[in-house]
């Protein structure tokens, strides 16, 4: 069976034009997808049943047993952490937040290791952005800052920017200038009209310098700022100010460089400054396909996009304190539920070690690095393949992923609802 207009559950681009060929309960071919998408659909090798660690071995257990034990562990904990959420859909994330409320847990999503700093910056100065189609149809200048879309978001350029013809930009490749700013050459920098090579950790100074130039303070700029010549900075500022519609995209390179969220803040303030002269927008290149959805769901229920601590009953938020990496590094939490992400692969070593010390339960379709740190793993259907639900694209556009076939696993929502029911019952 051939299914059209399938939404890809890999990265934040959420391409929705895939054509997927399904035989039984297996995807056999994907058209229009990038290599990352193909791997996601085709290289899908599931864990079959829930498993529990028993000494040095794993034993198979039933779903009911796994769910009951998970609920018991969470109820016993004094500082449980519910982490992940980016790889599942909104309806499941909603139950996750309600579970955290009842438990008095900390709930956090993968923003903590990617665009958390972008969120913190937005909370200081706001976010002049737009949907991706606005850029496709209008932008004559696009800047990728510390982002390498060719590798991480392979279709970003062809669907939304460099190669995407739009209503006002009929021939994008010719009419649209692309500037890449990075600490090293990348595949993306090679197709740029202008490549700005910055010293590692120098982004903040470069952004400050550009802001000063746009404010008319050229005289203050020294001949060289963090490896970039004054002339190039002037040229970049001129390109931006002459643009009819400019768009900055930034990647984790900027959020994780020294200064972290202050880099993003500076980039946003540059964008705001440019808006006094022309139209400019800025957008984070969100990684996990539905990480933005987890931010949205957390926000409408708790008021905060990530790192929410319910220990005191009310919602409290303070990145650096309530973020999972920090909680794990300090060894605070005494139980952890991981849903739809792989902290074992992405967290610092000290954090992974703490996960291994405490009872960690993972709800995830696949055996991954976190499996090796867990006590229990509950396999589920993959959202976008055999489960459907809402996901938010990196620019906030919500889409409904498709269920391509009826698989044999329950989905995240079913498992979480059962845990939630047990916990609610126990809490009265």
């Amino acid at each position: 069976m051939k299914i059209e207009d399938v939404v890809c559950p890999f990265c934040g681009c959420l391409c929705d034009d895939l054509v997927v060929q399904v035989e039984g309960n297996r995807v056999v071919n994907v058209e229009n997808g990038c290599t990352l998408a193909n791997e996601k659909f085709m290289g899908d090798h599931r864990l079959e049943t829930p498993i529990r660690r028993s000494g040095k071995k794993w034993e198979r257990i039933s779903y009911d047993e796994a769910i009951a034990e998970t609920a018991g562990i969470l109820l016993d904990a004094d500082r449980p952490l519910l982490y992940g959420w980016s790889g599942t859909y909104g309806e499941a994330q909603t139950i996750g937040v309600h579970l955290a409320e009842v438990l008095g847990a900390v709930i956090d999503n993968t923003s903590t290791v990617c665009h958390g700093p972008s969120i913190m910056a937005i909370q200081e100065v706001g976010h002049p952005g737009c949907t991706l189609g606005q850029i496709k149809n209008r932008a004559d200048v696009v800047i990728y800052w510390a982002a390498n879309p060719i590798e991480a978001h392979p279709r970003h350029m062809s669907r939304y920017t460099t190669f995407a013809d739009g209503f006002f930009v009929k021939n994008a490749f010719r009419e649209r200038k692309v500037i890449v700013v990075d600490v090293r050459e990348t595949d993306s920098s090679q197709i740029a009209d202008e490549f700005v090579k910055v010293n590692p950790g120098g982004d903040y100074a470069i952004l400050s310098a550009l802001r000063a130039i746009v404010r008319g303070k050229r005289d203050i700029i020294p001949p060289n700022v963090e490896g970039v010549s004054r002339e190039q900075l002037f040229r970049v500022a001129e390109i931006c100010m002459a643009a009819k519609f400019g768009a900055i995209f930034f990647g984790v390179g900027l959020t994780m460089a020294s200064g972290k969220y202050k880099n993003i803040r500076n980039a946003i303030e540059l964008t705001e400054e440019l808006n006094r002269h022309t139209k400019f927008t800025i957008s984070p290149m969100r990684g996990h396909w539905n990480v933005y959805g987890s931010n949205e769901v957390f926000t409408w229920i708790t008021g905060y996009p990530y790192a929410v601590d319910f220990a005191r009953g009310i919602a409290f938020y303070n990145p650096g304190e309530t973020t999972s990496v920090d909680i794990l590094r300090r060894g605070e939490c005494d139980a952890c539920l991981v849903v739809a992400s792989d902290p074992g692969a992405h967290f610092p070593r000290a954090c992974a070690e703490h996960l291994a010390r405490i009872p960690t339960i993972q709800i995830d379709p696949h055996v991954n690095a976190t499996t090796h740190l867990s006590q229990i793993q509950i396999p589920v259907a993959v959202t976008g393949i055999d489960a459907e639900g809402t996901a938010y694209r990196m620019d906030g556009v919500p889409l409904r992923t498709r269920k391509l076939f009826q698989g044999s696993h329950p989905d995240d929502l079913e498992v979480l609802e059962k845990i939630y029911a047990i916990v609610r019952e126990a809490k009265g």
Partner: protein
Amino acid sequence: MPGILIRNAFVIDPLSGVKGEVMDIAIRDGKIVEEASTDAVVIDAARCLTLPGGIDSHSHVCGTKVNFGRYMSPEDMRAGRTARKGVMHVTSGYSVPTTFGNSYRYSTMGYTTILEGAMAPLEARHTHEEFTATPHQDMLANTLFDGNWSIMEAVKEKDVKRAAAVVAWTLSAVKGFAIKLTNPGGTEAWGWGGDVNSIHDQVPHFGVTPAEIIGTMIQANELLNLPHSVHLHCNNLGVPGNYQTTLETIGLVPDLNRDRQSLYLTHVQFHSYGGSTWRDICSKSEDVARAVNNTPQVVMDMGQIMFGRTTTMTADGPMEFKLYMLHHNKWSNHDVELETGSGITPVYYGRKSLVNCVMWSIGLELALLAKNPWQCLLSTDNPNGAPFVKYPEIIALLMSRRFRENERKMIDPRTEHFVPLFAIERELDWYEIAVMTRAAQAKALGITRIGKGYLAPGAEADVAIFPLKPDEIDPSVDYQQVMAGFSRTRYTIKRGRVVARDGEVVVEGANSTIWTRANVPPAYDMSSDPEFTKKFEQYYTVRMRNYPVQDIYLPRGVRIDTEASL
């Protein structure tokens, strides 16, 4: 369910012609009925004021922009924090509370229906997701068409029917309720960082004017026989001297509908400024109110501002940028491809700011100068003028000249030179307040047809009982009591169920989303229109098939079907 019998209620039910009578109300199966069943639960209202459930006809509570207001404002979340308690979820926030926070606070104030003022069609799914997390009110979504390319092309071609067809397809696809125009043409111009400055300015590239967009959409709305009229946020919001734009706009409106207005003007306070700069801004409420009084085919809502901090948010992207330039506070913007824009910035309205004092006066003046309460509805454009929790204070100000005089002493003393407020003696009565907070909304939105806004048999059993005894208190003196009473119902009943009591929400709630489907002849079905679908696939970044909001997002959807006259 056994039903409810409310005894001894002091009822004001304007749509049924009840202007304050002590009577009983019987409820069964979610409806008002002639007679209660014998096992009905009896509530003794003890001659307390009993009204149809409150209806907010213009509020921003759900969707992309509202949630971004939350997302960017952890400082706002430091207020209004409550822990999970009984059936109530955790809440946070003051000006942009969490969805449950909004829902609980509205419910304890007796509100049972809310219209979300602005939904971008492309992001409609988000609005609907938040609707289901606002469980104590039935929800409706104004759908944005102000910068819609297909609409502007139809306007350019002077093809009203095609415009109507685009509206019909879009409302049905995104499960929207009515047509919203926010700064028509201005949001498209903002795509290039510009704006339009009068209703006769050309929209860049599209070669149409706001006046043409407004005129065409009013016609299209009536061709589709939609329950509500076009809902307009005029051009030039917040600009000194903008009352001229507002008067010109009112002058455009034909009288096309027997049952309701032909144009709904929202948050008119923000559109009634005289002067030419912030230094000489003054009230033009008298001119605007006179125009409204002389134009029965329009209805407005106040858009009252109240002193204190809040967060402004609107689809009017260029206006928010201007506000950012004025205050240098944080600013977010979110343009939506082919459709509209939006912006957010926090503000503080201060009693020490003359401009803010003038704005505060204008809203009240509009309500006091509008002769017919059915033409001026109470609103703050929540949260733009103030969070909706300020409604009781606004009611008290409208009902008490003494309260207004006391406030006069607290504000910038120069204010009185710029506004007529303190010369106005009128004090609104209970009936007028009932009109301005529920009955007129139901009529203006056209939802009496589904039983909203009144208490006669057959109506939805949405009822608010306030701890106020109209035969014992004098609102012009006891305004503090009025304020307290409207802040917290004794009972809020929604679809026949007590949902809130004395400020506490007592059940989990299960709301409905009300939407409209205008049935058009096949020739006007845009889903098979080659040009429409081709442009869609070319310029949007989502596939047309993935655009419509699936039924699953409306677990208790209520569809109003109309037959288009095309």
